[in-house]
């Protein structure tokens, strides 16, 4: 079987800072990581491969430095890695991104065999939109199954897969035919530690690198800024509220500070006292 996993190299957003004066993002020196949600997808794919036999191809669209993410994927045990990189992709929104990735997956299929499942993470920590996975599914005509908590079973002969999908208030148990696209929930499968042989292989590997042309992305109008129906007009920091937080100065005894705070709260919102009584009474 052939599993394709889409991963993305993202800045470790916990470490991103805003420049104190210019209010722009300072990306300098912020380490990049593989989008954590993608690791659950990768591990799921690796487990299925170990169980069913076959190969896992990791794919990413990004700048040349995204190669690091692919090497990590190889270290975890992916069989091959493909980097889709081209300046034409700069400025892509999710629609343009799914266009390019879908085409690259077609090319991967032509080269190494059509994928049985395309995996992706639930969303990225830098975009957080969760739109690219569904976008790829639509374009490739793949059945789309998102927010999957668990793969319950894969029947290679019947070419079906059973999955558990997180829905509102419960879990849907679904069965889909292959091929399909699956996005995995966090916590579904902890990524393994790659074996030494995988780490060496990753360090030695030639990452397959495709430009737009090499991947067969023909319609450049659908890429980058031009292919993006959404456009970011403004980036800004939220304006701080005019009145800053009123400071309740800590007293030596925490009890007194607490009482000061409660008095201030009830003064600001007299109805709060009654609300709290009601809640405490369990009403």
């Amino acid at each position, binding site marked *: 079987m052939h599993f394709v996993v889409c991963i993305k190299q993202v800045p470790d957003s916990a470490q991103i800072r805003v420049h104190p004066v210019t209010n722009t993002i300072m990306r300098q020196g912020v380490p990049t990581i593989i989008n954590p949600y993608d690791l659950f997808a990768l591990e799921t794919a690796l487990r299925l491969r170990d169980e069913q036999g076959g190969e896992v191809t990791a794919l990413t669209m990004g700048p040349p430095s995204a190669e690091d993410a692919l090497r990590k994927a190889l270290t975890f045990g992916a069989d091959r890695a493909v980097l889709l990189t081209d300046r034409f992709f700069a400025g892509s929104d999710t629609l343009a991104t799914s266009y390019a990735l879908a085409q690259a997956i077609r090319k991967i299929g032509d080269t190494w065999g059509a994928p049985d499942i395309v995996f992706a993470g639930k969303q990225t920590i830098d975009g957080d939109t969760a739109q*690219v996975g569904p976008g790829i599914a639509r374009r490739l005509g793949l059945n789309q199954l998102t927010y999957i908590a668990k793969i319950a079973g894969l029947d290679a002969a019947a070419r079906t897969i059973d999955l558990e999908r997180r829905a509102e208030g419960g879990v849907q148990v679904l069965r889909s035919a292959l091929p399909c696209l699956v996005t995995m929930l966090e916590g579904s499968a902890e990524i393994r530690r790659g074996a030494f042989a995988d780490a060496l292989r990753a360090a030695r590997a030639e990452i397959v690198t495709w430009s737009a042309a090499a991947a067969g992305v023909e319609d450049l109008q659908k890429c980058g800024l031009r292919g993006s129906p959404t456009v970011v007009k403004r980036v800004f920091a939220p304006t701080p509220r005019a009145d800053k937080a009123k400071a309740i100065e800590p007293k030596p005894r925490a*009890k007194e500070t607490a009482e000061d705070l409660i008095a201030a709260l009830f003064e600001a919102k007299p109805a*709060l006292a009654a609300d709290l009584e009601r809640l405490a009474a369990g009403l």
Partner: protein
Amino acid sequence: MSDTPPPAAPAPSRAAMKKELPERFKAYRNVWVMVELERGQVHPVSWELMGEGRKLADKLGVALAAVVVGAPGAGTREATAESFAYGADFAYLVENPILAEYRNEPYTKTLTDLVDAHKPEILLLGATNLGRDLAGSVATTLLTGLTADCTELAVDAEKSLAATRPTFGGSLLCTIYTLNTRPQMATVRPRVMPTPARQEGRTGRVVEHAVDLREETIVTKVLSFLPDRASHKSNLAFADVVVAGGLGLQGAENLQLVRALADALGGEWGCSRPCVQKGWAPAERQIGQTGKTIRPKLYIAAGISGAIQHRVGVEGADLIVAVNTDRNAPILDFAHFAVATDAIRFLPALTEAFRARISAHTSDRLAG
């Protein structure tokens, strides 16, 4: 150089920023809100969106429509009635047994069919698992723009939808437009927008629409549905009082101080994203843009610095109290009260003080 920033979002050319709506989209009018109906229940986010949709429709001078999709007799008629009570002018109704359980293919086909037939200029969905699953496929099928997890929706002078959402992992906000395709799609997380007032007796027009769906062409089959056990549910989104802890608590064990205060106040407890990432608490306790958005009367944040992605999850609270030793923490930009003291010492004292105050009040009233 290994540290060249990825070429995301370079300044768009002026041409890309201009609205040049192709002719075929000029007839698209009205604001639609997808009503999320599952197992007879409408997800409350649909009503929150109805309120927002109403404001947008009024500004544009157009109508507001609800989109109700489901199996016949499974709450669809009730949902359309409720939509009118919450502000819709009319409701598109698609009833088909194939739509009984949510599945991506039939729902996508239904929604895209409706859009092609009745041409809305704006389409809003809740950013729930269902909404996000559906919105992505619909937007890609329609080759239109979709902005996810918006915290603010507005209409500009040129009658375009301005959708604001956090960016760069939540450090900043950005405003996004879909200038030259229709419909302009957006998803909004639950509790980000307020629930509008319900107008009993308000009515509207139901427009029925049939979609050609065949079970044999649908690849996904629903084998069963396993409901959650009640104990899994936290009521953070609707709690009137929320107490939350962050990394400033220094250890998972100190979250019990947060829980104790929440219990004393009859409220819910939660935590910031880094705590969940560290495994101190399960994901359903996460408060913030990618966790739960809350709108309590009182929100107490202990040891939370208040990055934007947390801020947008709690800004709707009436009273925000920050307990943080860092007098420069970003949370002080939007909290109402700040106590610059160590949360680990302060929370137990606050819990005691609240208990004393509340029971004193109660016995006062009972006595009086």
